[in-house]
């Protein structure tokens, strides 16, 4: 890691000596580990390290970017030249910032020391255990498609010509199992996942139960007659919905006319029971961090309170344009990406009822337990979605037969207004954005298309 810091320093020194303007190096490096087990043997095994450096320069008010994974000194002049050349063609008139740093930083816990003690052998054994437990859980489970353990460690460094010098290292471990159930010629798979920052999170039984239940329950699932019906989104499915549409809370999208929430700060945009909070300061959240991609200190931001939009999410550029402060939501998709905006730990407030109690309240309808094809069937700009879904019918307030091969369609902006009640069963998304959501009951009937 100190090697990478030294290399960043060399880039800054070269830039200082050879060109004017303000500049910044954003570098990341880390390790990743992955083992996939099949039939009690290692199917694939991968152990890697990586490093990437992004350099940006602000010249005449314009920001140009260049990046590289090649950390030899001969590459520095072309890295700096490329960023310079790119700055020269930028036309965007918005004020750009190379940030000197926040007044203070609070470091949330993002590194689980205990994970350093878990050896590769232990991870392999755990993947084997997951597979064994899944196959033994029920006679209908004929095999697993995969039983995988992944872990990683990542360091982010930001250094710039205005004095910023930040560094943060985080890690994680996660595992998932995909059991396959068979009954006659019918086959179906399920998905069980776990993850966290310590040994205690490696709860094989929980992940196996989740995956096996799903694989078996949906063996006999059938479509249902197309109808307009009431809907509960189970916690994990609603996490996916929020993740797909979290971009509507981005001030960048709003300023560009790509979010219907533009100009709605202070207005009611959701039902009373909806409070959405973004917080990068919690310990061991998957989206926790001491500083964002521009080096702005992390914070807690109430985005929607009792249905009222309190603020959008800002980075330095969009905040300056709107005359407000950055909310610490600057992000980079990867080290090469330009600065964008994304949520940190984004949470929908929970209510009192369990999923079963929500079903009882609903009476008749459907519990959606999984939505798929979100990259295709959901339009983050319009809010429209039409998604392949799985779930259970609810009759007389009780969970009934499993349903698949249906689509649920609607509009996310409408959905926010139609959340009647949120449950007490908060689920934390483990891949993608760090979204947490309970199950939600929707008040207005939705279009369920099947047969």
């Amino acid at each position, binding site marked *: 890691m100190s090697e990478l810091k030294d290399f960043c320093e060399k880039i800054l020194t070269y830039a200082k000596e050879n060109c004017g303007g303000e500049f910044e190096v954003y570098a990341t490096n880390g390790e990743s580990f992955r083992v996939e087990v099949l039939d009690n043997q290692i199917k694939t095994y991968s152990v890697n390290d990586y490093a990437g450096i992004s350099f940006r320069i602000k010249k005449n008010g314009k920001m140009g970017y260049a990046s590289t994974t090649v950390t030899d000194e001969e590459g520095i002049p072309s890295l700096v030249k490329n960023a310079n050349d790119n700055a020269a063609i930028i036309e965007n008139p918005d004020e750009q910032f190379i940030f000197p740093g926040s007044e203070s930083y609070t470091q949330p816990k993002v590194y689980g020391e205990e994970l350093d003690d878990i050896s590769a052998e232990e991870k392999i054994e755990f993947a084997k255990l997951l597979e064994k437990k899944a196959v033994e859980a029920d006679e209908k489970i004929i095999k697993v498609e995969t039983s995988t353990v992944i872990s990683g460690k990542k360091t982010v460094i930001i250094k710039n010509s205005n004095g910023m010098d930040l560094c943060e290292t985080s890690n994680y471990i996660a595992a998932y199992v995909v059991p396959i159930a068979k009954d006659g010629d019918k086959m179906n798979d399920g998905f069980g996942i776990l993850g966290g920052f310590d040994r205690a999170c490696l709860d094989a039984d929980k992940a196996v139960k989740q995956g096996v239940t799903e694989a078996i329950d949906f063996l006999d699932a059938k479509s249902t007659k197309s109808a307009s019906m009431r809907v509960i989104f189970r916690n994990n499915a609603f996490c996916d919905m929020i993740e797909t549409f979290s971009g509507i809370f981005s001030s960048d999208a709003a300023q560009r006319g790509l979010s219907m929430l533009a100009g709605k700060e202070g207005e009611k945009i959701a039902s009373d029971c909806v409070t959405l909070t973004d917080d990068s300061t919690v310990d061991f959240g998957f989206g926790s961090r001491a500083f964002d991609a521009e080096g702005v200190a992390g914070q807690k931001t109430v985005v929607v309170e009792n249905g009222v939009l309190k603020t959008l999410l800002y980075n330095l550029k969009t905040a300056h344009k709107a005359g407000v402060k950055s909310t610490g939501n600057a992000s980079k998709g990867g080290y090469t990406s330009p600065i964008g905006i994304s949520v940190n730990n984004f949470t929908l407030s929970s209510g009192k009822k369990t999923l079963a109690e929500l079903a009882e309240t609903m009476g008749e309808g459907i519990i959606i337990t999984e939505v798929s094809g979100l990259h295709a069937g959901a339009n983050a700009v319009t809010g429209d979605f039409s998604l392949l879904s799985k779930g259970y019918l609810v009759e007389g307030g009780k969970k009934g037969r499993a349903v698949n091969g249906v689509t649920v*369609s609607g509009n996310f902006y409408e959905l926010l207004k139609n959340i009647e009640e949120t449950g007490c069963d908060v689920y934390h998304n483990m891949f993608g954005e760090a979204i947490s959501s309970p199950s939600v009951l929707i008040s207005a009937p939705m279009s369920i298309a099947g047969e």
Partner: protein
Amino acid sequence: MVEKRVSEAVLLKAMSTGADYAELYVDDTSSDSISMIADCVESANTSRDKGAGVRIFCGTNSVYAYGNGTDEQSLLKLAEKVAAAAETAKKVHVDLVLKDVTFEPLCRAEIPASSVDKKIRVDALKQAYFAAKEYSPEIVQVSGSLSSSVKRIYVANSDGVIGRDERPYIRLGVYAVASDGKENQSGFVGPGNSAGFEFIKSLDLAAQGKEAARIATTMLHAGKCPAGKMAVVMDNAFGGVVFHEACGHALEATSVGYGNSVFCGKLGQKIANEKVSAVDDATMKSEWGSRAMSDEGEKTERIQLIKDGILTGYMIDKLGSRRMNMRSTGSGRRQNYTYAPTSRMSNTFICAGNDKRDDIIASTENGLYAAKMGGGSVNPLTGEFNFAVMEGYMIRNGKICEPVRGATLIGKGYEVLLNIDMVGDDLVLGQGMCGSISGSVQTNVGQPMIRISEITVGGEIG
């Protein structure tokens, strides 16, 4: 990129603990992207991504390690890592003689994009951008991008092959948003090729921009698509995403080799309507999904997947070949060195048939005409797929009527293949990025206009 001596040492070290196959892969990609939004150039990025991966097989199991260092010491360290993870500990005597194999390039950049002045590239992007923006006052926002890259690849493996490939890519993207103040709708075009800047010069840039804007404004004035089972006429080009999702993924060794595909053990059997023939062809000149050499150092092929409704082939990589006891079809692909390769599609399409476009529409009494498709996904185990219709119209009494939006097509791949009852004569390919376990790779989908006699359409319940 690597000396032969070093490659040999790396492969031998990787196999030193009993692996029966080893492969060294190095790639070096230089990319450039320029993007526009709100009528001005918003960002420009130049990047270089170089790294190496070493993979070994122990029977049908594999071990992979990658890193950014490509010097001798770093490569040997990767070899040590994989060797340490090999489960067998037996020493095997390995004779290794590496030979350079030449793969005649299929794709060349006549005018390398990076040699074109950035201002000229910006001008090209602006032509497409402003044609979209000025299409209608309803177009409230447009974003555009012009991205290009060159990937240089080096592969050395214990089959004795040293192979090199150089792949240029270039793609234009225009995304237009139409709004009436209450609702937004969007349209997208993204033509690309494995070529240089000459491809951009060959495009009618304004027409591309206008097309994105036309879709967005048409959809803004469209009613919601009714839901239910109905006949669907799917137009050519990107309409082929249906075949890609519904069938293509389930014909990859990645799913077939592990018994996780509905098409396992079905070679020689009828899986589609007899009007359907389909191929995966990586050998087409300058196409988006083409390449002369697989990412495992093999010559690529044209694979006949389906012939007159009969299943005739799978897409197989080296590891899949071992699992399936079938020869590799040169289908091993990966996004870059950060992924071990696996079987992937290249240019995958339904072949042209004999039906005429006009006849297909005219003979459809009622249904949906899917003029432009969006993306989709599939579960290869169950065959369940879904994909979005970007631009749709109702068909009534054999005529294309009002536009509809919000339609999603869902179904099972093996059912849809049997339900394709008309196949047009107007094959066109469309460019996409396909994501799977070996990352995101350039793939062409394609088909002529086809009709599916019945499929579930997700939309609004009347």
